């Protein structure tokens, strides 16, 4: 599909650039062209783009700079040198508002092949990007001043080797040397509730990290945005080592507030989409992650559950309903910003979708729902779902929060919820109710993309 798109773009660019003489309306139909030579015409150019996010640390990051696509030897070369300007604090010109992202990637092969690349970056990164897809996170922050992520700064470089089979499967191994740092919430504009304060962006373990990662991805979905069938499997093992400042977190420190940490961490996101009839779907997701060896995980690599992306029946970063299996904070209290502290996580999500007969909505679809000339069409689908998940710490068994490395918490300790929603295609409105904590009130939330 990407190849076809590239050929389309190449065709159009070529036609625009060359000003090829138009054929007349009575020209013979079905004349076939050889357009193979056009495939190399898209060489990139100047790019300006948003970072596809909006958050309390950066505001809207704007990436700009030159990009280049071309051939090098027998492979495709992609280069980009993007500067980052962040809109936080009124676009103030300071170190927190400036960053960069440089990358070089070389790939050889069509249906299957290998590649390698290098990156240099000074970026703001989400701690748990798997929880919620964009633009849901960005819109919640922009409109409602609710930021469902925590962030840290990554400044360094990374190199990697990869092998791929079409767009369906890839594996890679990479090595990075990165300085991780805490970032604070800044003065960021929101459309509503502008007088309220942002939730504190929690402190992380600042330090220089050496990271080796192994990644394997399989994606057989028929559509990435609205899949009806297929697998999505994303697995990652990470080995990290470095000296970190741990004084502001709950990791035991030496006298100078620092500690050498050497850890192993795995993460698995497994999704299966099933079509059970032309209008019905049953989809499932399993997320497992956590510490596997070495010292405790730094706070940049911890986990949590709860909130619209994982367990929507529970408020985001909810505490005070018994043992905190959402963020794994002890009974003595949470750290500022209620950071994710869990060293392991298990989450299961099951979702049933039923497309409704849309004759009623076709009245509205006749000319589409127009917003600034853009046309949105309604495609109503009823969604019913159930979720269960929790996080825990690793150590000697201690109540319902800490478990030995080789044991798994009982399912009766999981937070569970159920819910229903109406997804109109443009956006969906959902109601979720906690089951494991019956006194929790129901939550109403909006999602602009499928739940997973």
């Amino acid at each position, binding site marked *: 599909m990407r190849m076809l798109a590239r050929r389309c773009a190449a065709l159009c660019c070529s036609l625009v650039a060359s*000003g090829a003489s138009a054929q007349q309306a009575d020209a013979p*139909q079905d004349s076939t062209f050889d357009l193979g030579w056009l495939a190399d015409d898209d060489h990139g150019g100047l790019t*300006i783009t948003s970072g596809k996010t909006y958050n309390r640390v950066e505001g809207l990051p704007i990436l700009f700079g030159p990009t280049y696509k071309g051939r090098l030897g027998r492979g495709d070369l992609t280069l980009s040198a993007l500067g980052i300007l962040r809109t936080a604090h009124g676009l103030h010109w300071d170190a927190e508002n400036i960053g960069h992202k440089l990358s070089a990637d070389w790939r050889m092969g069509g249906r299957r092949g290998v590649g390698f690349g290098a990156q240099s970056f000074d970026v703001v990164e989400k701690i748990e990007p798997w929880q919620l897809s964009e633009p849901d996170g960005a819109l919640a922050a922009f409109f409602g001043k609710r930021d469902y992520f925590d962030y840290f700064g990554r400044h360094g470089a990374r190199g990697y080797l990869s092998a791929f089979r079409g767009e369906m499967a890839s594996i890679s191994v990479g090595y990075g040397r990165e300085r991780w740092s805490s970032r604070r919430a800044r003065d960021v504009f929101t459309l509503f509730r502008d007088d309220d304060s942002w939730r504190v962006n929690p402190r992380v373990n600042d330090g220089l990290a050496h990271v080796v990662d192994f990644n394997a991805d399989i994606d057989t979905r028929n559509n990435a945005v609205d899949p009806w*069938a297929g697998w999505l499997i994303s697995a990652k093992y990470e080995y990290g080592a470095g000296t970190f400042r741990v004084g502001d977190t709950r990791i035991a420190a030496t006298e100078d507030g620092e500690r050498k940490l050497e850890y192993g961490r795995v993460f698995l996101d497994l999704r299966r989409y099933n079509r*059970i009839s032309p209008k019905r779907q049953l989809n499932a997701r399993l997320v497992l992650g956590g510490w596997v060896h070495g010292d405790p995980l730094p706070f940049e690599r911890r986990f949590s559950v709860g909130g619209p992306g994982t367990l929507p029946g529970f408020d985001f970063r909810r505490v005070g309903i018994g043992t905190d299996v959402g963020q794994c904070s002890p009974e003595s209290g949470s750290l500022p910003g209620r950071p994710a502290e869990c060293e392991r996580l298990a989450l299961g999500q099951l979702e049933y979708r039923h497309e409704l007969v849309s004759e009623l909505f076709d009245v509205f679809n006749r000319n589409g729902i127009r917003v600034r000339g853009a046309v949105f069409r309604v495609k109503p689908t009823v969604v019913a779902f159930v979720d269960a998940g929790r996080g825990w710490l690793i150590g000697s068994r201690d109540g319902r929060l800490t478990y030995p490395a080789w044991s798994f918490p009982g399912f009766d300790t999981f937070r569970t919820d159920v819910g229903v929603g109406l997804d109109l295609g443009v956006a969906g409105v959902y109601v979720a109710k906690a089951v494991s904590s019956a006194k929790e009130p129901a939550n109403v939330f909006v999602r602009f993309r499928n739940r997973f």
Partner: protein
Amino acid sequence: MTGKLAAGLIAAWIIAVPAGAQKPQVSLQMPEKSALATEPPSVRSSALITDGTMLDLLRNGFPARLHYRIERWSTGGWFDDIAAEAEWDVVVRYDALTKVFQVYRMVKKSTVSLGSYGSVLDAEAAFDAPFPAPIRPPKRGQRSYYNLVVDIETLSLTELDEVERWLRGELKPAVRGKKNPGTAIGRGVRTVMVRILGGEKRRYEARSGTFKP
């Protein structure tokens, strides 16, 4: 009171929709029952690129790309499976020099010109006509259905182009004092939000009934 007001607004909105306006749509035309195992369905469409916004973009030099994806699903087990799939594109481009719309269809490695036309209606008609989908039909006795998705986007319309269009069309008059700059900036923000929501892309779907050749 509020309910009456809402009902009135909805009624007014429905009435305000031009009754004669042609509805953008795609459809699948199935072959005769005796040919279900030998012939693929044909794809028909109407009014996909003739509305104001798309036409405006086309006339400003942004080619339109219509990406077709058809899937044949087999049924019978616990879950339906994709038994076959095919993709192709139609590209429509306006040549400002000769003032004609050029239409191309790209299937696999073959690109075919469907002609050049003086009006957008004629260009639309060139690819609206029934086109046999390049997909393998099911074997006899295999219970199946087809699903077609058409994504329409304006090629080359990057965010840089969007900014340029905004500067040219809305902000420049504001800078010259002919327009309220606050409104122009507000429109720009709304444009960005519409793009975040995916409003720059259009998607149409069609599905056949379940059949057994």
